[in-house]
């Protein structure tokens, strides 16, 4: 099991990778190489999100998976030192 910190780093990396491809695809919507990379990173990103949200809490509110507590409201928040 990866630590919360390492999983968050992986998520930030995949999200940024995907987003930068997103920007490229905005102006090149038929580029098959970029689309293949986009789909590949999308899968890796999904796995990282699943591992993080299952063990360390939601990144978006709808990822909260408890019948007892809304972990979304728990500290720390991303702007706090050491929490991002």
């Amino acid at each position: 099991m990866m630590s919360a910190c390492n999983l968050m780093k992986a998520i930030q990396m995949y999200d940024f990778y995907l987003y930068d491809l997103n920007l490229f695809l905005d102006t090149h919507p038929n580029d098959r190489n970029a689309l293949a990379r986009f789909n590949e990173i999308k899968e890796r990103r999904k796995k990282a999100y699943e591992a993080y949200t299952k063990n360390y809490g939601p990144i978006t509110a709808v990822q909260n998976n408890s019948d007892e507590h809304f972990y979304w409201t728990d500290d720390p928040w991303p702007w706090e030192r050491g929490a991002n």
Partner: protein
Amino acid sequence: MWSYEKKLQYPVNIKNPNPRLAQLIITQLGGPDGETGAAMRYLSQRYSMPYGKVKATLTDIATEELGHMEMISAIVYQLTRNLSIEQIKESGFDKYFVDHTTGIYPIAASGMPFSAATFQSTGDVITDLTEDLAAEQKARTTYDNILRLVDDNDVKDPIRFLRQRELVHFQRFGEGLRIAQDNLNSKNFYAFNPAFDKISSKK
């Protein structure tokens, strides 16, 4: 971090363009009690909020307000479709048109461009939340006035939805203020700012 969802929070489908009305409704985009000010206010304030539940409330309501900017912009956009120069002149829309054509630009109904001077972020928990309660009521009043000025049901329907959200936000901020007050200790009877005056807010 934010990401965009390619949908409106509530549908906007307006059959009849009405540039005169667009000039009134745009005040909820760029006016003193509009959605842009609301979003910027809550996004700015959340950094000095010490309580998770209220950090969540500010973050979530601010995010919803960004969606409301989009709804107001969609209403203004649809109200200014396919205009002839005659319609532009007759409706008084020419004063907006000369600078912005039919682009969307955040201004008040008076023509005053959006300004951060319409809101505060004081870094004081009680002060900020009290401003937020007032802000939601002021936006509700503006929606009430818009509803008094509009006949078109295609416009009234999404405006009524936005008005109702102001009431829900007022309720949630009231609860947020209560949470903040419950966290003030018994020595902090005069509500010194718990985000800054650490000694008086010690648990």
